[in-house]
């Protein structure tokens, strides 16, 4: 919905470039757009207001840097404040308590507590080498305890056996006793879903809290929740002392405004996010990534920073030289693939580009992904040194051998060769042009030959498709020209030009 926030801000600031500083009026206008974006992302209204005030104070009077547009600059400030609000560091679980340390999971119905309990158990067992026990206090939802037992079996941790007729309080006590006997490090208590308006259920939760004195009380919340998120988080944190939040279903397409609200209102860090339906789909929370996503604006600055970190200057200089000569062989291509991967793969780069949401979806729809890149890598690795330098050597039988060696089809090899040749041609052109080809060329060249791991025939994302996509995205990539300049003129994935350091 607000994929084009950058674009809107761009319009707001049209004509501002010549002026020296952001005026209050300019900022106000921009912040109205930001407000809408945040509200569409389901950030709670009270949090939005507070947030906007913070940004305003910081943005007014700020010097407009020559290197970025005013719109980008406001976005940078917005982004910085977002990260601040989300908490700048990853928050660890505090479970180094005299065993058993207890983790209590609470939340609304259907927020994902039971699944999270299973994921958390696996995480603690594998990553932290803890001996874990799961216990379900959910005596209400049909088959809730059975669900936890199955998850416990899958995670290969102990699960407190069920006894019918016990109250949640009794189960909690029994679980604590059992985990002492079994020398359990961490006991995870899964509770029934409850609304904060249900006083009976809330007092039950309070009682369990009193009995178990948990080291961590985690509120499990759905990343897709609306304005009510704040209400829920607030009520929970008022009634039970919460130490952290787990945000589930972050792999959906929700902007996750709830994340911002939760953190602000409870004052507790988000400790984990659920990222898939599988048992290992639980990850520590990265505030910075969430910030970009909430605004769906990408972060050009950090892309540049990342490029600078990833690509050694020498490499860049070498690449530059080779490009200007128009020689670009499989070794160069391999290097590029490596760099692309280091920067977090295609997905990683894409997520940092502004307004690229649509393209990303389109790419997913075409199975155009990191797997395809790994496949290309495999193909090149299956070539001899000579072949890598001189592609002309590749006759039919060599291609067959390479395909067999890399576990691909000959058509995949053919496609890669064609892509390499296209790129070599383009590099030559760009070299001549002094390297001002920009992202656009890069995109079409990338699209030109990426093999599709899915079906055979009509699988490659052809340049015309990419061109279409670009047209479709239209004004949504307003600052590409700018960005290309900042890359020193080279297109991705080569990133040959030495990227300029961030200027502030």
């Amino acid at each position, binding site marked *: 919905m607000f994929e084009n926030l950058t674009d809107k801000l761009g319009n707001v600031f049209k004509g501002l470039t010549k002026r020296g500083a952001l005026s209050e009026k300019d900022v106000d206008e921009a912040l109205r757009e930001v407000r809408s974006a945040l509200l569409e992302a389901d950030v709670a209204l009270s949090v939005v207001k507070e947030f906007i005030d913070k940004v305003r104070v910081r943005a007014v009077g700020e010097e407009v840097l020559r290197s970025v547009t005013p719109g980008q600059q406001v976005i940078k400030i917005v982004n910085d404040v977002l990260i601040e609000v989300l908490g700048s560091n990853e928050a660890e679980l505090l479970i180094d308590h005299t065993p058993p340390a207890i983790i209590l999971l609470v939340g609304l119905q259907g927020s994902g507590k039971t699944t999270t309990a299973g994921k958390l158990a696996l995480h603690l067992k594998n990553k932290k080498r803890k001996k874990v026990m799961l216990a379900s206090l959910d005596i209400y939802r049909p088959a809730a305890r059975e669900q936890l037992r199955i998850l416990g079996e899958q995670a290969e941790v102990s699960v407190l056996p069920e006894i019918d007729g016990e109250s949640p309080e009794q189960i909690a006590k029994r679980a604590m006793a059992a985990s002492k006997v079994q020398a359990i490090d961490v006991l995870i208590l899964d509770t029934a879903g409850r*609304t904060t308006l249900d006083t009976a259920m809330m007092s039950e939760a309070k009682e369990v809290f009193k009995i178990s004195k948990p080291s961590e009380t985690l509120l499990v919340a759905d990343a897709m929740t609306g304005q009510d998120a704040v209400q829920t988080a607030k009520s929970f944190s008022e009634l039970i002392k919460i130490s952290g939040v787990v945000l589930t279903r972050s792999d959906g397409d929700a902007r996750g405004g709830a994340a911002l609200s939760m953190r602000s209102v409870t004052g507790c860090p988000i400790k984990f996010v659920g990222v898939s339906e599988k048992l290992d789909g639980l990850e520590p929370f990265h505030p910075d990534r969430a910030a970009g996503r909430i605004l769906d604006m990408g972060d050009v600055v950090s892309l540049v920073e990342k490029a600078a970190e990833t690509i050694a200057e020498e490499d860049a200089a070498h690449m530059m030289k080779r490009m200007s000569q128009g020689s670009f062989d499989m070794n160069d291509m391999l290097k590029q693939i490596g760099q692309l991967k280091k920067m977090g793969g295609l997905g990683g780069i894409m997520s940092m580009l502004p307004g690229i949401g649509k393209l990303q979806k389109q790419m997913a729809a075409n199975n155009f992904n990191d797997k395809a890149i790994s496949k290309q890598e495999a193909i090149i690795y299956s070539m001899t040194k000579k072949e890598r330098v001189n592609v002309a050597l590749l006759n039919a039988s060599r291609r067959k051998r390479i395909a067999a060696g890399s576990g691909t089809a000959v058509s995949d090899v053919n496609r890669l060769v064609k892509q390499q040749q296209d790129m070599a041609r383009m590099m030559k052109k760009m070299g001549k042009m002094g390297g001002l080809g920009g992202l656009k060329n890069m995109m079409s060249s990338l699209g030109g030959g990426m093999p599709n791991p899915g079906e055979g025939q009509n699988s490659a994302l052809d340049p015309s498709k990419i061109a279409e996509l670009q047209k479709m995205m239209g004004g949504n990539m307003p600052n590409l020209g700018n960005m290309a300049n900042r890359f020193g003129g080279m297109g991705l994935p080569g990133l040959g030009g030495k990227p300029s350091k961030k200027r502030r």
Partner: protein
Amino acid sequence: MALNWFKKLKSGLSKSASKVEGAIASITGKKTVDQETLDNIEEQLILADLGIEVAARITKKIKDQKFEIKDKKEINQLDISTTLASEIEQILIPCEKNLYEDISSSPHVLFLAGVNGSGKTTTAGKIAEQFRLQNKSVILAASDTFRAAAVEQLKTWGNRVGAEVVFGTDGGDSAAVAYKAFQLAKDKGVDIVIIDTAGRLQNKKDLMEELTKTCRVLSKLDPNAPHQKVVVLDGTVGQNAHSQLKSFDEAIGLTGMIITKLDGSAKGGVVVSLAEKFKIPIHAVGVGEGLDDLQSFEAVSFSKALVGLDD
């Protein structure tokens, strides 16, 4: 029944309702609806998850409306609330549709889909209970072969309402379970088949295709099946509901929606913008965990409850 529904919904919506009332209270003693009041109203509508677009438009309607100033020489708060409610009502009324209205074929297949944790299984059980009360025989199909203990959960509901539950193996083909249930219903002359599918996020392409496939497989037994394709939406969901509805509609062609969990502090206001944008019928609302906690959707009562008016 209607009164019961309203009561339950009202208690659920009371939080948001009292807020809207509070916002309008700032009108006390004023002769015109000033900007402060308008801002307050808009904010409260946003807080109720109506979304900024709809909130802004409804607020503008209030602004353009001439309110009568009677002997008290101030605008009556109630007048504003009534206007608000009627604006929301106008959007919702075309979407009000009874879930049990179009049941002509036998067996009739009702297909439930939705994101994880939205309350599909619970809703399946509650719908089965409604059919039982109408003296219709029901088969429940546990098409969720993915989530741990999903089958057991549905079986418990099956026992409660006296419906047979058809299930497959864990991790098995969900479409096969649906097919088997439909076939069985045909053989046994059962009236209704309710298919409970696994929750899935709408951006998971493969999983959405699985839904399309399941519907296709069912249509082999009857070209019109599934006769109803209903998405179950969590009432606490925010603007992401738009994305959900769009994707599920694209995958299976929705015939309606059911909103759950309106017994909490959630407002379910997103329904208003959904109704306006997608024009998909709203059948029912879930207002609790009990067997009879599924109530037919009533636009007028819902709108009134949303702005804190008594029915």
